[in-house]
């Protein structure tokens, strides 16, 4: 069966892909159109129930919740893309380096990775906020740093397995240098494993970003963010409980979509199905 046929038949991949596409499309659409401005404060219209004008109602300042949710998607994607790219690039570089050099380089990289786990993203964000003040950049740096050892471990593990394969032996026998082998043979062969990890870390980044914004350590108002919206909604829990539902569902659907996409990718890229178990490090939230 071709890869595209199997992709269509894989339920996780199909559902996850659709949800992820919806997330990206919402963010893209919000760049050019939202039903109303998410920044438009209209206090007399505050805490409205959902209606034809305000599809998801209004918040405590009369802003349109639906428009805020749309723009909030941009925010989650922005943080996720930058933070995961930082982790992917630095972590993969360190991981393949460790697999190539072995010896003390590998030892040093892995000890550094172990050590970084002593500082979960929230602790890093707290330290940066205490020094630099709250802001979206803190959450990006904190989540980015947190992602580095995760990608380093995954890249090292898969790269070491590829180094044992016959075609790498052949390339070495043919006199190719180790850097050339890493670029031509190792990297392309660990891309599929890395792509699975990217979707999962993207999902985790969205969760982390929401938590940091909720705590007031991440994205700052008036920039709409899903975590911040839940913080505001909690203050109105008795008057307008429905406000606490929409941003939470948005986060849940985005994370669910990316996780399912990751699961589906793993199944598709590993047709023997021997690694159906979730091999990724568990989410730290």
């Amino acid at each position: 069966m071709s890869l595209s046929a199997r992709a269509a038949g894989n339920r996780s991949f199909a559902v996850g892909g659709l949800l992820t596409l919806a997330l990206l499309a919402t963010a893209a659409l919000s760049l050019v159109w939202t039903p109303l401005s998410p920044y438009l404060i209209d206090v007399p219209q505050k805490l409205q129930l959902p209606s034809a004008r305000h599809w998801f109602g209004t918040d405590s300042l009369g802003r349109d919740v639906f428009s805020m949710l749309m723009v909030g998607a941009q925010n989650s994607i922005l943080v996720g893309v930058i933070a995961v790219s930082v982790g992917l690039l630095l972590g993969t570089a360190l991981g393949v380096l460790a697999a190539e050099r072995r010896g003390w380089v590998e030892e040093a990289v892995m000890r550094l990775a172990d050590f970084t786990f002593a500082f979960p993203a929230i602790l890093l964000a707290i330290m940066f906020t205490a020094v630099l003040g709250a802001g979206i950049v803190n959450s990006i740096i904190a989540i980015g740093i947190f992602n580095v050892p995760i990608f380093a471990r995954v890249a090292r593990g898969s790269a070491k397995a590829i180094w044992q394969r016959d075609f790498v032996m052949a390339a070495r026998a043919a006199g190719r240098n180790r850097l050339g082998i890493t670029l031509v043979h190792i990297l392309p062969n660990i891309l599929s494993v890395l792509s699975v990890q990217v979707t999962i870390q993207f999902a985790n980044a969205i969760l982390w970003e929401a938590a940091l914004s909720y705590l007031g350590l991440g994205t700052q108002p008036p920039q709409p963010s899903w975590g911040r919206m839940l913080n505001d909604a909690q203050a109105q829990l008795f008057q307008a409980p429905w406000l606490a539902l929409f941003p939470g569902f948005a986060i849940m659907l985005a994370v669910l979509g990316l996780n399912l996409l990751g699961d589906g990718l793993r199944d598709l890229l590993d047709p023997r199905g021997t690694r159906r178990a979730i091999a990724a490090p568990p989410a730290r939230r």
Partner: protein
Amino acid sequence: MGRFLLQRLAGFVATLVAASVVVFLVLEVLPGDAAQVMLGPEAPAETVRALAHKLGVDRPPLARYLGWVEGMATGDLGTSYAYDTPVGELVAPSLALTLPLAALAMTLNTVLGLTLGLYAASRHNRLGDIVVMSLSQIGIALPTFWVGILLILLFAVALGWLPAGGFPGWSAGFWPALRALILPAVALALVQGAILARVTRAAVLDVMREDFVRTALAKGLSPGAALRRHVLRNAMIPIVTVLGLQLSSLLVLTIVVENVFSLPGLGHLILNAIANRDIVVVRDAVMLLAAMVVVVNFVVDLLYVAIDPRLSLREP
């Protein structure tokens, strides 16, 4: 075995020292002038100098670092700038909330995750398995703080069974204090339990495919006995790994959940300290949390060997 323990102990101490250096560098050296950060950019130079002297930050960095480490070793955590009280007196009561909360959440998580995971594995590819796996897929997509808010909506706002937040203190009696921790612990345990259920199921199914399990079944051992005697012990390594990671996650996640339920724990202390620019408190509390994470990782390393003694012979 002795060499293994020594190696691990050395690694543990080295990690703690490295963590303290990072905390010190980020929170004390990076901002340049801690006194200026605390007082804000508009503070008069005279006041900044006076506070710098009072905090001791006008001394060279190495002397300050050694003084800080010595203080931590002897239990003297410095003085909070905002409250003008010893940090130890702020941290101790907050830990009396955070540690029981994390312990309660960990217990609920373990019971929930192991039960659901074992059940799903025993019903592999049947209805029960599919239901548990679908629910856990949703569970791991939920932000913990949103689960907390939903629990408040249901059990405090709608039903009025449990308090929406706040903590009466252990002096108010065991039950009233515990009542205040139930919803926060459930919020933490639901999400982590979903992760644990998936890992448990996967680990058990992996071991059940092994030859020695087939042999055990072939020689007539009942499935229950094979599970107890052969499968569980071998599935324990990934499960213990995840439990260790979850305990450190739970300790850190209490920061978020304490905020949802307005509980005066360590996380609450840290966020207030940030708002007050009270760097001394942030430094000590962050170090304390990082140290707890390092200790948990160390204990998990030792547990591996208790579960599978072969591991002490292998290269790390």
